[in-house]
Every structure is written in C-alpha cells, then in structure tokens.
C-alpha cells in the first residue's frame, strides 16, 4: 500500500485523531519534565519566563553540603542494595526455576507481595520494625544507612528474581546434562554453563534494582534517620520549603542518572539483543 492512500478501516495507526491523541499524551507526559529541566538553567529565581542561560544553580547545588551528602548516601545505598538484591534475587530465581516442591505457588505469591502491596504499608511496617530493633536511633553515618539498605533490598530483590527467571526460562537444559555427562561437577556446571547464560538477566536485574533504589522515596522516607537522608528525601524537604531553581537542578541530575540506567537496562532486555546472545 502506498503511503498516500487514505487509511483503510483497520489502519488505526494512520488515523489523524489517534495520532493527535498520541501526540497530546506525549506532550502531557513530557512537557512538565522538560520544563523542569529547562528552567534549572533559567537565570531567574521567580520568573517562569526564560531570562537567559546559567549553570549557577548547579554550582549552588554542588556547594550545598547536605545535598551533596544526600547524593553520596543515595549512591552508597544503591550500590550496596543492588549487590545484595542481585545475589538474593538470582538465587531465588534459580531455585524457583529448577525445582518442583510443595507449597511452591505459595512461595511465588509471597515473593510477589512486596511488589503489589501499597508502598506506604511496607514503609510503616519497616519503620516500626526497625525502631523496635533499635536501628532507627541516631546511629550516625554510615550505620544510619543500614535500615534504608535493608528496606531497599526487600523491595528490589523480588524484581530481580522475576527478571532472572524470565531469562532462565529460555535455557536449554540439555547443555547442563551434557556438562554433567562430560564429568563436570554441579558447581562447575553452574559456574561455567548456567551463570554465563544468566548474565544478561543479572545485569538487567541489577540495573533495575539500582534504578528502583535511587528512585525510591516512600520506603526511604520512613526508614531514614534524621542525619542520614537520601537524595530524594532531601529534595522532598527542599520542596516543602519552597520550589527553588536549586531543586530543579538537583532533580535534573536525578532524572539524568536514572534515565541512563533505564535506557541501558532496556537495551539489554530488548528482543534484538536476546536473539544475538542465543
């Protein structure tokens, strides 16, 4: 069909009003973020009209010691919780993929629960639990980050387990049998056959977990002590004091970091990539 012919009855993708609807939705989704980023470079405190390009709010944000500390905290929390949740999630994925056992559906359901329940329920539960365990008393840095890290691992590793299990589902188990037949031990088979196969899933799961950790506000809000803020919680308290261009600058940095990780994770999981690695 040539491009110029009128759309057929089923060519919904070429109908003008649907295209306009799609465009309007994209504008709705992106305009606020684009405006936020653009005005972090606007040379005016109050004005919403463009006054000229400046990077002074980034410099101000950089010189804001507590903001920088919160950013460092976020990176530490993301690094530690990602390592832990990748290992925990991957191990659980292998167990669920490889074995048949009683009460398996129950365990699968339990594993999905942290993903589906409202974040605030999990947040207050961890708050109560950690304060009873004495973990929320002013422990100072870096120990004060411990409850935040524990909370982040809890909501991220079920996601990792799902991603890794999806990868394992495409594994050809005759490779494992061949390896065992040729005299490799269980451990060697795991290390040299299964683990390399899992790798794209592990990387995607780790990136997902890091993004979730850097993005999380609700759980962190309830588990962080007064002296150990993370970046989103710090931005929240800045927003409560009033919207300033420094908040825009800090938000832009956060958008950029998570954007890069998301695009990386998506590329790793895209079908084209999966085909080349098979």
């Amino acid at each position, binding site marked *: 069909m040539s491009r110029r012919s009128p759309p057929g009855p089923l*060519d919904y993708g070429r109908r003008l009003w649907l295209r306009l609807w799609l465009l309007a939705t994209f504008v709705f989704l992106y*305009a606020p973020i684009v405006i936020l980023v653009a005005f972090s470079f606007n040379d005016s405190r109050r004005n919403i009209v463009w006054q000229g390009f400046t990077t002074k709010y980034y410099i101000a944000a950089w010189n804001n010691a507590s903001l920088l500390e919160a950013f460092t905290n976020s990176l530490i929390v993301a690094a530690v919780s990602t390592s832990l949740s990748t290992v925990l999630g991957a191990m659980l994925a292998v167990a669920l993929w*490889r074995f048949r056992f009683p009460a398996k559906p129950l365990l699968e359901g339990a594993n999905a629960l942290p993903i589906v329940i409202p974040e605030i329920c999990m947040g207050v539960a961890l708050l109560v639990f950690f304060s009873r365990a004495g973990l929320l008393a002013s422990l100072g840095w870096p120990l004060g980050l411990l409850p935040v890290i524990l909370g982040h691992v809890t909501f991220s590793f079920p996601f990792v387990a799902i991603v890794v299990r999806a990868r394992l589902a495409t594994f050809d188990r005759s490779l494992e049998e061949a390896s065992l037949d040729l005299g490799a031990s269980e451990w060697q088979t795991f290390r040299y056959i299964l683990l390399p196969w899992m790798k794209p899933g592990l990387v995607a799961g780790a990136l997902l977990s890091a993004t979730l950790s850097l993005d999380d506000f609700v759980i962190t809000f309830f588990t962080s002590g007064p002296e150990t803020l993370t970046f989103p919680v710090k931005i929240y308290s800045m927003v409560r004091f009033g919207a300033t261009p420094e908040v825009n600058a800090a938000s832009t940095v956060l958008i950029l970091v998570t954007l890069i990780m998301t695009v990386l994770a998506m590329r790793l999981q895209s079908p084209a990539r999966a085909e080349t690695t098979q």
Partner: protein
Amino acid sequence: MDDWRSAPQVFWTFLLPGTLWLALFFFAPLALVWLLSFGERTGPATIVVTWTLDNYRQAVDPLYLGLFWKSVWIAALSTAICVAIAFPVAVAVSFAEERHKPLLLMVVVLPFWTNLLVRTYAMIAVLRTNGYLNYLIEYLWIAAKTVADPLGIGSVFGDRYRPLEILYNDAAVVFGIVYVYLPFAVLPLYATLERLDRSLIEASLDLGASQLATFFRIVVPLAQPGIVSAVILVFVPALGTFLISDLLGGPDSQLLGNVIERQFKAANNVPLGAALSFLLLYATFAALALRAWLVGRQGRDV
C-alpha cells in the same frame, strides 16, 4: 523441572537466603504492625497488645471512614481518567507500523522511570497559580478576548485574567495521580490489544457494524483482561498514595496515606495507624482478588 529431593543441598542453598530475607524483613514487620493494630498505648513509646478492637472501631468511625471513601473515590476517578486516556494511546501504538513500536513503547515507559518525587514536583510548577497551565489559559484568554472585543461580546471575559486556583485541591491530586500512573495503564492495554485477533474487527466491519459499534462491542470486550490489569495497576498505588496528595493537595485533600503517615510520625498513634494500614492492605487484597476472579471468569468464557 527437578524434584527438590533430587538435590536437596542445592535446593536449600538457593532457596533459603531469599526466603529468609523475605520472612525477616517483610513478613515479620507486617506481622508486627498487625499485632500493634490490636494494641493500646500505655505511654509515649510503649504499646501493649491487648487484642482490643478499639483501633479498628476508631478507624471506621465517620471521620476516618469518610476519608477512606474519599481516597477510594479519588483513586477510582483517577483510574477511570487514566484508562480513558490510555486506551486510544494503546490502540495507536499497537496499530502503528512494526518498526515504530519499540520507540513508541519506550516513549510511553520512560516517564515511569523518572523519579516519582521529581514528577510530582514538576506538577507543582505546572499547576500553581503563577504556573504554566495558568500561563497557557491566560494566553488563550487574551486570544479569545482579542477576537471577541470587536464583536462587542468581549465583556463576558471580564477586564483582566484572574489566575485559576488549580493547585492545592482535590482536582490537583487527581491530575497528579493521572500524570504519574498513566504509563501503568498503557502497558497492559497494549499487551492485550497486541494479541487481539484483528480478523474479528474486520468481520464486524464487513458485516456492517460502524467503527464505534465495533469498538464497544468487539474491541472493548476482547480487551477486558487488559482493562482489568490497567485498572488494578493504577488503582492500587493511587489508593495508597501519600506523596502526591501531600505535595499537590490542600489542607482538606488529605488521603488515607497521609493520615497513616501522620499516625506513625507526628501524631504518634501507632495502633490507629496500624489499623488503618491494615484496612488499606485488605482493600488492596480485595482489588487483587477481584482481578483474579474477573480474569478467571474471562478464561472460562473463551
């Protein structure tokens, strides 16, 4: 799949770490909150579990029950708007040319990966009295007045534009929820529309049904599993939202999430907060059970 008894050592090594973690840092805290919801405060930091039902009684008294229904109502309204916006988007993406689909999907999903707080904050700049939405409306207002003035009906627009109070009310909360959770609604709808047998649409059109009749009597019923998933994916987080209503809502648009937060932090009434969070949890489970039931029924019909 192997039976776990074929290699019990391997089985336990892989299964236990994650399961124990979940038990310790997820189920134990939830169980603690559940216990505390039956407790009484005997001091500023001491709670004794007496199996009293007072907290639940207080949680369903008119003040909190009204708040619960308001949260349900706001979540339901936002969900309906989300699905109504998302359906044409999902149709447009699933009927787009094959080579454009990955890009279109990525464009839909990317905002979802942008921080929730940042997106809510971005809404403040759009909705506030001297924000971009008012700026846009003022621009349209001036344009309309310029057209209307020579016609002698310019007076209906008033002398000067008075900015609308859009931020800090319930409407702003709904706006924020729709903005934040819209990608959640598009994805499941797209997934079902993608699998939909298009010859059924063709058959309906060939047999003389209009596009509109085909849409409501063929496409919507067939897309029901996707609609149910979209509704749940938006409704559950919207019901428990606390950040969006905190930043965009006014003093009287506090939702269940805000009240729970206050009980655990400023008000320090943990037993009441615990009872309220479990009511929220039960409502979530009810929504999930409804979904399972609807999807199961759909499966039997086919």
